[in-house]
């Protein structure tokens, strides 16, 4: 089955060229594109923007953890298994603080980890770009820019011409499968 073209991928020499190319593509009006690099490049943040819900998700999960720990302890110590220990109040909340803190951290960390996987769509063991042999370099020293075919500005000939003008090392047409 061939679902057609995924996009055009260009390999650049270094981070500076990749950033320049991404910026140029952005100015040309391309939106559906992605830059690939062997380490994070902060300059790309504004060129290829994305909404980052992760901090909010982590905050909510953390608060949920706090609430869970409180309900758990209050529920057990006051409702279900009340136990008089040396005349202390059943709801001896100061001693509940530690587990509330621990579960806050546990839930928030779980959300940070699994949230990242969720937002990034992982695990995703296949991706059209993996068909480009040279793309293996991206986890070592390769810098790639891929303009996707579903961008409304995308035109195979024009986009290829545009990318070639940026002076990439090489250029590939990437098929879906």
């Amino acid at each position, binding site marked *: 089955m061939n679902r057609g073209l995924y996009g055009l991928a260009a390999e650049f*020499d*270094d*981070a*500076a060229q*990749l950033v*320049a190319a991404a910026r140029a593509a952005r100015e040309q009006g391309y939106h559906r594109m*992605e*830059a*690939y*690099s*062997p*380490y*994070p*490049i902060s*300059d*790309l*943040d504004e060129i*290829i923007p*994305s909404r*980052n819900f*992760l*901090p909010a998700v*982590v905050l909510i999960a*953390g608060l949920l953890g706090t609430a869970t720990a409180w309900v*758990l302890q209050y529920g*057990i110590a006051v409702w279900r*298994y009340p*136990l008089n*220990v040396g005349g202390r109040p059943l709801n*001896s909340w100061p001693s*509940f603080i*530690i*587990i509330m*803190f*621990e*579960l806050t*951290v*546990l839930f*928030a*960390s779980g959300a*940070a*980890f699994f*949230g*990242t*996987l969720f*937002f*990034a769509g*992982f*695990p*995703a*063991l296949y*991706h059209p*770009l*993996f068909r480009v042999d040279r793309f*293996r*370099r*991206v*986890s*070592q*020293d390769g810098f790639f820019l891929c303009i996707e075919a579903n961008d409304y500005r995308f035109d195979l000939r024009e986009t290829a011409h545009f990318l070639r003008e940026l002076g990439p090392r090489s250029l590939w047409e990437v098929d879906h499968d």
Partner: protein
Amino acid sequence: MKLEVQQRRAQREPEPGAARVIAPGLTFADITAQISSIVLTRPTPFVWWGAFAVGMGLLLMLVVAVTALMYRGVGLFGINIPVAWSFAITNFVWWIGIGHAGTLISAILLLLNQSWRNSINRFAEAMTLFAVACAGLFPILHLGRPWLAYWLFPYPNTMTVQPQFRSPLVWDVFAVSTYATVSLLFWYLGMIPDLATLRDRATNPMAFRIYGILALGWRGASRHWRWHETASKLLAGLATPLVLSVHTVVSFDFTISILPGWHSTIFPPYFVAGAIYSGFAMVLVLAIPLRSIYGLENLITERHLNNCAKLMLTTGLIVGYAYCIEPFTSWYSGDKFEMYVVHNRAMGPDAWTYWTVIACNVIIPQALWWKRNRIEPKRLFALAIVVLIGMWMERYMIIVTSLQRDFVPSIWWNFAATVTDNAVLYGSMGLFLTLFLLFVRFFPVISMFEVRELLPFSKPDGGSER
């Protein structure tokens, strides 16, 4: 080839070698090849097999000891009333303390933008994970009926019993299990890009598949990097208070009781400082052989040794301060039991532990004031071993000398370690060593993507070399 030429050209104005975080003249390809070759192509060094044999031997001893313990019961430990805690809890506190330096390096130094940590954080995090695994073993073995360890968790049951949430021992269950989980998530998240590198360099189809699955399909997209970075920072922010809380909660196991020598407000900071102290000692004990066996001196440089040694010296001084304050608070309290504990520690039947602690943790580490001792690997290794021994002994001293002399002289008793006590202690070292060696063999021991960021030409605007 243009890239390499450009990268080589970027090596201007070399700084003095010792001060560098990484050696000059490295390229992205060099770093990737050097670190991934340990896993993928280089033959496993002879020393690795030797150490692995030792580790497995000790691990076997642990298995035998634990089997005997399960079969015969905790009486095989030398414990009895009043010394119901001894080696097992000492080992627990020691191991969990060792883990703390890994989290300090990976979380606190990340938040403080200490980029020198980039080449040591990966194996330090692995150290944390394995140290916590060793630590977790002991409270469970110590339970008496280890197979009922799940009773520690509040789960719906028909026994009409639930954990007592006012007890620090239950807090500890939550603190340690949270710490283990968060350490694992943080470690794995940080490793995903490097697992992708291993996937992309693997020539063996089996290795390609395994690393491919573990890398989850990482492809270095800028959005993925952003989420990865956000998540790392958030996890670091969460792990920072967590790591301080874990040893605080461990110290609550002691301070919440009323036993003389334990019931003290100085314990939480004192325990945390001691934890980081022993943790940095373990980082050095692992880093020094690692860099010489695998030739990683260009990535784990003298600057790393020097910085770790300085942190060890600093935390050691905090611990030394606590040793000075303890007798003072006892004296100032006017409580005769408290004063007796101090006297008993320094002059009682186990006085040798007290003086070993003072020698190993306070006096000998003062050698670290001299720079030669901080950057000379052999000397630093020896000092780190001394600190590890001292810190184990410190926990032993706190636990045993307090328990064997409590309020009523008629129950005073002297603890003596048994073969099982020793077998479990050394066996846990075998477990740690085995896990660590397997990690070194099968995972990238240094974070490749974070070291790439340290290279001068990594920034688009050509930032300067740090």
